């Protein structure tokens, strides 16, 4: 697997990690702090040297403010060394960049340099002890060298850990946690809304078009039958055509029901759940305790869940009785579908349950399932109403 950040790389096996570029990248990342650090010290010294002390104090914030975009740009660029995930665009970018500038100027740069000094300089001095301390006995000097060599891998870990942690801090300030995820969820919700609008349009078109025409056709054929003698062959043919028209109407009605529930739109979740339960071949006890209507996406999702769950249990559970309950608990809609069937429903097996979970995730809902072999099965769904 390819690691995308220094922190992820730390979990690799030691030899793989030590052989990778991550320790070097982290070292380069931290060493970068020397550049603005030196610049900052230079600016500070220059200000103090050139101006009187009060004027110099006044110049410090001005210089800081001017350097914010520069510092932010620098931090963004070097973040790529330890964090390969692109930064998302955020609305309050300026405020966040100012935060990074203050954080790095006041603390991070200096900590970086101290970290580097201790972790790298320590082993290097030990290794070079025969050279830098020629007066000590050669045995001690050699032992120190060996210890220094042994400390190098430790240093690699320390540097990478700090580099990764520092990168994570900079990222956390530049882009809030989960901002990408929230945007993905929002775009999925928009997609689902668009589908819902489209389904409504299809339902309306079928209702106003094909369905009305079939009803008219069926009525005309019914009237034609009245005028024909019962035993004529024409009456038989018209009768057959009439039967076909009625069959087509029934099939079309089932199709439209699957596309969009008009009762749900008109009367809300309680009525729609009672009606879908009424069509289930397994007797279903319905207990829906809701005051008023819920937001449309919540209703549509809950209705979809109940329809799917009832269809599934009719197909697979061999249940003799089922129950659906729905209520709002602390701003969350809780829907439970229970059946006394054979159990053993597997979230990984069929596409049904996975589809439910996918649909729920769009509205931030959760699904939990208890279905031991031998039954009973309980599906519990929670959808936030806010």
């Amino acid at each position, binding site marked *: 697997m390819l690691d995308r950040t220094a922190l992820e790389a730390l979990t690799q096996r030691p030899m793989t990690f030590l052989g990778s570029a991550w320790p070097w990248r982290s070292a380069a990342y931290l060493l970068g702090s020397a550049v603005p650090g030196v610049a900052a010290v230079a600016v500070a010294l220059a200000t103090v040297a050139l101006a009187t002390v009060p004027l110099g104090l006044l110049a410090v914030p001005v210089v800081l403010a001017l350097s914010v975009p520069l510092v932010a740009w620098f931090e963004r660029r070097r973040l790529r060394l330890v964090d390969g995930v692109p930064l998302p665009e955020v609305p309050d970018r300026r405020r966040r960049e100012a935060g990074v500038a203050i954080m790095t100027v006041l603390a991070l740069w200096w900590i970086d340099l101290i970290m580097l000094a201790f972790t790298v300089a320590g082993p290097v001095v030990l290794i070079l002890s025969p050279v830098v301390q020629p007066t000590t006995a050669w045995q001690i000097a050699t032992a120190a060298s060996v210890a220094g060599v042994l400390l190098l891998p430790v240093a690699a870990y320390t540097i990478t850990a700090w580099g990764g942690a520092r990168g994570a801090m900079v990222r956390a300030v530049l882009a809030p946690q989960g901002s990408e995820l929230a945007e993905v969820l929002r775009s999925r919700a928009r997609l689902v809304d668009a589908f819902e609008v489209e389904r409504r349009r299809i339902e309306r078109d079928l209702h106003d078009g094909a369905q009305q025409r079939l009803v008219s056709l*069926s*009525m005309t054929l019914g009237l034609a039958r009245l005028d024909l003698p019962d035993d004529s062959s024409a009456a038989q043919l018209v009768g057959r055509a009439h039967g076909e028209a*009625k069959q087509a*109407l029934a099939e079309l*009605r089932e199709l*439209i029901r699957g596309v969009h529930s008009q009762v749900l739109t008109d*009367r809300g979740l309680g*009525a729609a759940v009672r009606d879908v339960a*009424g069509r289930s071949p397994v007797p*279903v006890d319905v207990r829906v305790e809701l005051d008023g209507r819920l937001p449309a996406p919540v209703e549509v999702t809950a209705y979809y869940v109940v329809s799917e769950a009832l269809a599934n249990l009719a197909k697979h559970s061999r249940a003799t009785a089922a129950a659906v309950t729905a209520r709002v608990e602390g701003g969350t809609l809780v829907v439970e579908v229970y059946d006394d069937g054979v159990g053993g429903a597997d979230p990984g097996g069929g596409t049904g349950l996975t589809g439910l979970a996918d649909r729920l995730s769009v509205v931030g809902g959760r699904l939990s399932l208890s279905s031991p072999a031998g039954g009973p099965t309980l599906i519990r769904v929670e959808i936030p109403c806010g």
Partner: protein
Amino acid sequence: MRVVIAEDAVLLREGLAGLLERFGHSVVAQVGDAPALVAAVGEHRPDAVVTDVRMPPGFADEGLRAALELRARDPHLAVLVLSQYVEQTYAAELLESGDGAGIGYLLKDRIGDVREFVEALDRVAGGGTVVDPEVVRQLLRRRRDPLARLTPREQQVLGLIAEGRTNASIAKELFVTEAAVAKHIANIFAKLDLPPESDGHRRVLAVLAYLR
């Protein structure tokens, strides 16, 4: 019988009017939306109203709401509601109005069975209750305690009562004598605790028990 028809699809509205006139009823007004229906009933004082559920302006359940409003004003007005799909929720709402007497709720598909359709309208106008077999089928599948006491045969008979059938028609459907049907019905009334004094009304009450 004087009838007002409310239906937004012109083709169907004209066809329906022609059909009813053919069977000797007079269609005093044909309208295409719910407010016009309420106005037409106020103006013509018809014996019965035949209305679609989904109509302008909102294309939701305006026709049904108009029917409920008309029944609230005049519980004796016979109303036959037609729809492309039937749901027990709407059936229950309709039957709650004026104790369910003079109420019909049918799929539009049933118009094609012309004779039965006109008979259904006659029964509604005569104070009867007619519920679409499709709704009845939904209700039979529901687990409901008072109804659980009925035998399968009694449930079947109750379903046919809900469709607005007479004892004779039920007997014919089930291939039994009318006396047997009467016995089943007496058992149903007893099991649903329907008092004997409300006699003429007990069929409607039984259907209501069924729907609640």
